[in-house]
């Protein structure tokens, strides 16, 4: 189901059409979330600066892997809902609440879903890391180590499982996250072509661009 077929191309899942790779990882009082920056139309690369991780507020980030049009639409929808929440409640959305909102929005379209598989990363009220991942209809999973999403998930699971350690400090978390992502996308044709890593601590966010293979 959900397959596309363009002439002179093989059948592909709709979630693989544009390509993406997203990892979020938890550390000691910090979280990291990283994505590749490729946007493709099946085999053809169209852009090398298509970011899939969006900042909702200082403590909440979301990564959206999947069909690019839904990535952009969901980002706009989330900004809309977040704005409404902040106006009505006069307080900021926490990552957990944001994750529930996202899950709810996805399930509303249960029989005609958004083709995205999101990842939520942030710091809760006590600056403890919060991570969640979900499928395209909003089934969430909560962990404290790492969540991955995109076209290279098999690679990313392998890399994360190997490189991950508990309670990493922000600098070490950055290194781990970067190496895991870079190695994973190098073995996937549909993701790569640049990467961005955000490390979130109670003192702020540091975002860095990675230089990787551009093929």
């Amino acid at each position: 189901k959900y397959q596309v077929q363009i002439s002179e191309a093989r059948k592909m899942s709709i979630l693989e059409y544009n390509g993406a790779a997203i990892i979020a990882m938890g550390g000691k009082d910090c979280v990291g979330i990283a994505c590749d920056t490729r946007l493709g139309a099946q085999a053809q690369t169209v852009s090398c600066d298509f970011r899939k991780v969006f900042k909702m507020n200082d403590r909440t980030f979301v990564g959206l892997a999947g069909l690019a049009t839904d990535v952009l639409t969901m980002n706009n929808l989330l900004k809309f809902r977040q704005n409404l929440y902040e106006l009505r409640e006069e307080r900021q959305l926490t990552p957990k609440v944001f994750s529930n909102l996202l899950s709810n929005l996805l399930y509303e379209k249960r029989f005609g879903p958004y083709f995205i598989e999101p990842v939520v990363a942030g710091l809760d009220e006590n600056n403890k890391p919060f991570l969640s991942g979900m499928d395209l209809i909003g089934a969430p999973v909560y962990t404290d180590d790492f969540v991955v999403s995109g076209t290279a998930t098999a690679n990313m699971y392998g890399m994360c499982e190997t490189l991950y350690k508990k309670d990493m400090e922000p600098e070490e978390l950055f290194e781990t996250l970067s190496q895991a992502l870079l190695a994973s996308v190098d073995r996937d044709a549909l993701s790569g072509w640049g990467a961005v890593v955000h490390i979130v601590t109670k003192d702020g966010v540091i975002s860095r661009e990675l230089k990787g293979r551009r093929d």
Partner: protein
Amino acid sequence: MARRYDSSTTTFSPEGRLHQVEYAIEAINNAGTCVGILAKDGVVMASEKKVTSSLLAPAKSSEKTYKLCQHAACNVAGLTADANILIDQARLRAGRYAYQYCEAIPVEQLVEHVCNYKQAYTQYGGLRPFGVAFLFAGYDTHYGFQLYQSDPSGNYSGWKATVIGANNQAGKSFLKNEYGAKKEDEDEKMKGCEE
């Protein structure tokens, strides 16, 4: 006389008036005063909060001033419960516009939307009008800083300076004399107005 044309919001009186709308406006004349003044670099709004009882828990947020979106806010005079509905409508409208066009809603369009909503309660349904008057203040790239006033009829107009709520007549005549003398001195005028 006017009595038999009072009860229905959606019926004109022989003199061509909508009595329910006028009574709604009366209700607002008992509410806390709000003053709004347009300056060249912004809009100033001040409101009088009426403390009805010392037993009241301190309010988490204002009952007079509300943010509608990043570039617009409003002050309320009248029934707070009615105002809450309209403020929510305004916030939704601003959000939906930004969602659709990825651009900030022009202030007048936001005001007009709220006013159209209010107007419906003077023409359809047999429901009473909203007992609220607003002062809308905002900025957009088309007309810069703007100040609007709206009332239960759904009518609105742009102002350089205006007053709603209790003693608004006195306030307006004060502003008529004072406004334009020195545009930067809003605080002086505000203090004068509250008196």
